[in-house]
């Protein structure tokens, strides 16, 4: 008797549920769930905030609606630790059932998240982690991985060429002692030496060094310039301490030595220093001007490439989802559609090579104190002095030849001209 009653109640309940289920799609489309992993605590929390703000700004602009699908963004804190990034990714995938993972900042986070995407068959989009091999020698392991940012060496091949074109013959490299530093220096050295220049010394201060006192006096005096790759707080200290020591020769820097996460906090000693990246907030295009103004009025700070790359990532996801009328097409199709995109981002035109890394402009930028975009104060900007259009991660070497050489490391390319 009771069991019959329960069964009847169950049937009724099922009927009600079915009715709701049938009614629901007519009202709203299935939402697109995006998991976003960024360091919100720890030494690079500022970068995490820049990244999240960039992504959210795009969502605000389209009112969290991608091609008809409401977007649910779930942000998790990686604490800048690779294994925390992994557990947070698992949470996003297993509990929140996200269809897309975006995020990570440090290269080890990228290396940690990519296998998760393979194992769980979830798309992982790297907007920031720049480890070369993710879209080079190891790409085959990661079928659901795509990069919207850059490879560490990508802007530094053109920069090496540029330095050579300036007539620099001998350069001393000083760079943070970890994989990102090796890949940046490697790219610069390869292009610079292929053009006839010589890296005559490599100095590796530990990551997050604040006092460069022990390193500066060892810089060889017969060099024409210094190439520096600094990260986070290091970027503020190095040019200051080098100039205070009386060094007057030019400084050429890797992308993060002078990006807008550091630049607004630098002093006038940085004026004249040159660096390269796929984005500059000082880029004089109407689209970038609008982007900078909107970002700045919203978040009170000039956007850095961390903001731009995430903004553009959101834009790209929107473009894919629009194509499919707001329906998530499944991970394989999503990756295929995304890597076929060509978008006009604040950084300029972006498309993808067949290893799912962006082909984009690389800007050589010089730090100048000037007024831009109608702001009334003199500020430091990375003014673009030369544009290398449509640069791929393989520069001019060609994919096959490039992939034959090992990934850039502390010992590759070897320092032939070091004594």
């Amino acid at each position, binding site marked *: 008797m009771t069991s019959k009653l329960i069964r009847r109640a169950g049937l009724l309940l099922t009927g009600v549920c079915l009715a709701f289920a049938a009614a629901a799609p007519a009202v709203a489309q299935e939402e697109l769930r995006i998991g976003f992993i960024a360091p919100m605590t720890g030494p690079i929390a500022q970068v995490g905030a820049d990244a999240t703000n960039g992504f959210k700004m795009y969502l605000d602009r389209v009112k969290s609606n991608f091609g008809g699908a409401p977007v649910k963004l779930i942000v998790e804190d990686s604490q800048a630790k690779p294994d925390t990034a992994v*557990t947070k990714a698992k949470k996003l995938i297993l509990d929140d059932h996200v269809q897309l993972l975006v995020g990570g900042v440090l290269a080890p986070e990228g290396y940690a998240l990519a296998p998760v995407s393979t194992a769980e068959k979830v798309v992982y989009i790297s907007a920031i982690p720049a480890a070369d091999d993710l879209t080079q020698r190891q790409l085959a392991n990661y079928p659901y991985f795509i990069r919207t940012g850059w490879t560490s060496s990508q802007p530094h091949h053109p920069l090496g060429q540029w330095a050579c074109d300036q007539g620099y013959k001998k350069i001393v490299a000083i760079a943070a002692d970890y*994989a990102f530093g090796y890949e940046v220096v490697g790219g610069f050295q390869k292009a610079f030496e292929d053009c006839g220049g010589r890296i005559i010394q490599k100095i590796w201060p530990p990551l997050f060094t604040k006092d460069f006192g022990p390193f500066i006096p060892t810089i060889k005096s017969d060099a024409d310039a210094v190439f520096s790759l600094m990260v986070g707080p290091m970027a503020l200290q190095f040019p200051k301490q080098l100039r205070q020591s009386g060094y007057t020769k030019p400084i050429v820097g890797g992308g993060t030595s002078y990006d807008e996460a550091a630049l607004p906090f630098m002093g006038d000693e940085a004026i004249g220093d040159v660096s390269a990246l796929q984005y500059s907030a000082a880029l004089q295009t109407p689209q970038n001007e609008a982007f900078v103004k909107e970002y700045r009025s919203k978040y009170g700070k000039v956007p850095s490439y961390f903001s731009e790359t995430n903004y553009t990532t959101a834009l790209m996801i929107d473009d894919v989802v629009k194509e499919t009328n707001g329906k998530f097409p499944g991970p394989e199709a999503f990756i295929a559609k995304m890597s076929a995109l060509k978008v006009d981002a604040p950084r300029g035109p972006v498309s993808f090579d067949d290893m799912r890394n962006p082909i984009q402009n690389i800007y050589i930028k010089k730090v100048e104190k000037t007024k831009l975009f109608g702001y009334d104060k003199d500020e430091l900007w990375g003014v673009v002095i030369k544009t290398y259009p449509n640069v791929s991660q393989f520069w001019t070497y060609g994919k096959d030849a490039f992939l034959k050489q090992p990934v850039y490391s502390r010992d590759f390319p070897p320092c032939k001209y070091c004594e």
Partner: protein
Amino acid sequence: MAPLRMKVLIVIAILAAAALIVPHTNPFVILLATRALAFSILVMSLDILLGFTGLASLGQAAYLGVGAYLTAILAARYQIGLGYDFWLVAALGMLGAAVLAALFGLLAIRASGVYFLMITLALGQCVWGLAYRWNSLTGGDNGINLQHRPKFGIDLADQVTFFYVVFGFFAASLLIMYTLVRSPFGRSLAGIRERELRMKILGYNTWLHKYIAFIIAGAFGGLAGVLWVHTAGIVSPENVVLTTSVDALLMAVLGGPGTLIGGVIGASVVLFIREYLSTLVHWWQYVLGGVYVLVILYLPGGLMSIPGRIRQWRAARSEAADTPNLAPARQ
């Protein structure tokens, strides 16, 4: 004897309940519980030194690192340890860590107190330096990824299966370490903790006792590493760095040094605040800091001392309650 047996039964009951309940929660909680159990083996191994021998080590992450890197290198390079040979790798991880501990012990055991702390710290940082710099072997700061978890009859990629396997390792480790600290050898360790000089005078070779305890702790640290690397599928210098050693020490203190089981409580509390609470609120760091401060201020014996405190407090209150009852009788 009876209260002790009671305590052991309570612990077994709670652990059994946890083993039954956890698989019915959501997958993220299962993963976190697995991580907490794996890490608590490291914390318990440290507790053998800290709580039972009186040696505060700040280099325990080194052994976790040996186990983890050994597992990762064998799996990523030689495909060893992804089938039935997982058991071999687990044994190798323990052995490797024990060998390292035997080496480090020669240097560290001669010191005590804060000097022991400094030496273990320095040795631990040596291992970190190797992990960070020996790029060709360890992948430098990028670390090493494992593509998948071992599969032998059962598939450890399944969260619940893996939880039970780690739980099994945890329970076995707890049992072995518990037997150890209750043995005459464990008693002599406690003697050394209380007064080393007296133990020496009684004829004990205290150096050898400490040395062996150090090696055993190292071996379990290695086991923790073997399991830990499979929880997230990645090992990086972050796992070997000083803060991981400090974490283990704080977890031991938080749970209650000299209790073993306090290790799993400390590890669970810290990991759940850091990895679960941080998904809910952004001010989780204040909670973690607050927990540390409150425990150190008000519960020097760690969270495990709470039942004892409650008993004391109730005894005191019933005494206090008794007094007014007696008072009218006197009138």
